[in-house]
C-alpha cells in the first residue's frame, strides 16, 4: 500500500502534538480552570496538532493520486543545499566571513547555473562583489561585526 503525503504529514503533526503534551506535563505550574498558567498556549497548540494531525491523516487515506513533491534529483539537490549551508556556517566559524562567503557563493552560483551559459569570471566577480557589498553594508555602514574565524 502506498502511503500518501498527507498521511505522513498527519502522522508527523500528531506525533508533534503528543510530544508537546509530554513536555508540558513536566511543568510545575498546574493547569486550573481559574488560571490556565504556562501550559495553556502550548497545550492549545498540542490539542490542535492532535486533532488536525488525525484529520489530515484520515483525509490522506481517501486520496488516490497526488502531485509528486520532488523527483529523486530534487531530493538530492535539497539535501546538498542543506549540507552546503551547514558547511558554510561551520566555515564561517573557523575560516571567517571573508574566506567562507566568496567560496560558498562561487560554489552555489556555479551549481545553480548548471544548464545556463555563464563564465567562471562572471561568477568570481559576483562572489567577490556580493561579499564586498555585505561587508560594506553590515560592517562599515551599520557597525555589525562579521565572523572573523580563527584568523580574527
Amino acid at each position: 500500500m502506498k502511503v500518501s503525503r498527507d498521511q505522513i504529514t498527519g502522522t508527523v503533526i500528531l506525533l508533534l502534538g503528543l510530544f508537546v503534551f509530554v513536555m508540558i506535563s513536566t511543568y510545575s505550574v498546574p493547569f486550573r480552570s481559574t488560571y490556565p498558567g504556562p501550559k495553556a498556549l502550548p497545550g492549545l497548540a498540542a490539542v490542535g496538532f492532535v486533532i488536525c494531525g488525525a484529520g489530515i491523516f484520515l483525509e490522506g487515506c481517501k486520496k488516490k493520486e497526488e502531485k509528486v513533491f520532488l523527483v529523486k534529483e530534487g531530493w538530492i539537490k535539497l539535501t546538498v543545499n542543506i549540507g552546503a549551508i551547514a558547511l558554510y556556517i561551520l566555515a564561517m566559524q573557523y575560516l571567517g566571513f571573508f574566506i567562507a562567503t566568496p567560496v560558498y557563493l562561487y560554489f552555489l552560483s556555479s551549481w545553480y547555473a548548471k544548464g545556463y551559459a555563464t563564465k567562471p569570471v562572471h561568477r568570481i566577480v559576483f562572489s567577490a562583489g556580493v561579499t564586498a557589498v555585505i561587508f560594506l553594508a553590515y560592517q562599515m555602514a551599520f557597525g555589525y561585526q562579521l565572523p572573523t574565524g580563527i584568523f580574527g
Partner: protein
Amino acid sequence: MTENAAFIITQITNPLNLLLLLAGNVIGIVFGAIPGLNGTMAVMLFMPLTYGMETGPAIIFLLSLWIGGCSGGFIGSVLLGIPGSPSSVATCFDGHPMAKKGQAGRALAIGMTASFIGTFFSAVVGAILAQTVANIAFAIGPWEYFGLCFMAITMVLAISKGNMLKGLSSACLGLLLASVGYSPIDAQARFTFDNMYLMGGLGMTVVLIGIFGVSMMILAHAKGFDPLPTVDNSMIKGIGIKLSDIRENIVNISRSFLIGLGIGFLPGMGSGLSNLVAYSAAKNNSKHPETFGTGNPEGIWASESSNNASIGGAMIPMAALGIPGDSCTALLIGALTIHGLEMGPMVFKNSGDIVYLMFVVVAICAAVCFVLQAVGMRIFPQILKVPYHYMYPALIVVSLISAYVNSSSLYKCGMMLFFAVVGCIMAYGGLPQSPLILAFILGPTMESNMLKAFQNTETVATFFTRPISCVFNVIAICCVFSPVLKALYARFFRKENKQIAHEELKLNGNK
C-alpha cells in the same frame, strides 16, 4: 498631528532618511516584481539591518520596502502573467492579456496610478481614523485583546480554502514556536532544553527567514528553476493613460478602494484577499463583464487600487490596537517592538510623532514609487531577467548574515538552517504560511492577555459576558468551525430542498 509636524518634517527632510526611503522603494519594487519574492520577504531580510538604526530611519526604511513591494507586484503580473506577489493575482487576469495585445505600457501605467491612489489615500484615511480607533481601544481590556488576537489568527484559517486542517496546524506551529522561552507572568521555562540561546525565545528573524526565505530558495532550486522570462521592451510603448481614464473609472476605483481599506482593516486579512474581492465586484458591476479576463483595464484599476488601499487599512489596527492587518504588518509590529515601540492605544500618547511619521512616510512612498515606476518603466523587463543562479545564492547569504548580526552568534545561523528544514517539511505537507506568521507574532500578546484576564476574574465566562470580547471570540470560534458549519448548513438545506421537491412532485402527481 500638528504638534508632531516638526519631528516629521525633520525626519523626512533628512538626506540620509530620503536616501533610505529611495533605496527601500527601489529594493521593494524589485522584490515585488520578481515572482516568488515579495515585499514581506524584503522586510524580513532587511529588518536586522535596521536594528542598529535610530527609530525614525528604521521605520522609514522598513515602510518603504513594504510599500515598494506592494506597488511592484503588478509588474510581473502584467509583463509575465505571473503575479509578483499574492496581492497582484487579479492583476494578471487582465494585465497580461493587455500586454499581449501590445498595451503593456498602458497596463503598467494603470497599475502604477491605481497603486498610487490606493496607497496615498488609504494612508490619509488611516492617519485620520487611527486616533479614533485608539480612543475606542482604551475601553477594551485583556479579554477583548485576547479575542482580537484569537480572531486575527482564525480569520486567516477561514480563507485557507479546503485547507482548514493544514491552516490550523500551521497556526498551532506558530503558537508552539511563540511559547519557546520563559512564559509570561509565571516565568516557566518552556521547550528550552537548558539551552541558553532558547531562554529568551526564538528570534523573529531566525524563524521567519528560515521557514519562508531560505526554504523557499532551496526548494526552488530543488524543483528546478523556471526558464528566465523573455519580455520584449518594444511591448512598452508610451504611457497611454489620461485623466479621463481615472474619471471614467472613478466609481470602480472608489468601490475597490473601500473594499481594500475594509479588508485591510480586518485583522489577519490583507491585500492577498482584497484584490480578488475587488476584481469580482468590478466584474459584477461592469457593463461588459464578458470582457474581463481578455484585457479589460477595469480589472487592473480594481485589483491595484484595492490591494494598495489595504496598506492604510492594515495600518489602522496595527497602530491603534497593536494587531496586524496582514503578515507584513505583523513583521513591522515585531520590528517596532525591537525599537522600543509597543503598538496599541497608548502609542499615540507615548510616541504619537512616530505613528504619524509612519502614515506620512507611506503617503510619500506612494508618490516616490509612482515616479520611480514612471521613470523606470522600460527597465522593468530587466528586473525580471535577473538570473536565479545569482539572485538566490546572494539572498541565502544575506539571510544567514541577518541571523548572525542579530546576536553575533553563528548558533542563530544553525537555528535558521533548522527552520529552513521546517519550512521544507511544511511545503512538503502543504501547510500555508500566513497562519504561522500571525500566530507566532500574536501568540505572546494573546497569551499574556489571556493570563491577565484570568488573574482579574478567574473564570472563562468573562470572555463571553463582556459584549465586545464575546463578539470577537464567537467570530473566532465560527472561523475555526466554519467547514463544519458550512457542511451542516449545506446538509440541512439540501434535505429541506429535497423535501420541498418531493412535496412538489407529490402535488403535481395528485393534480
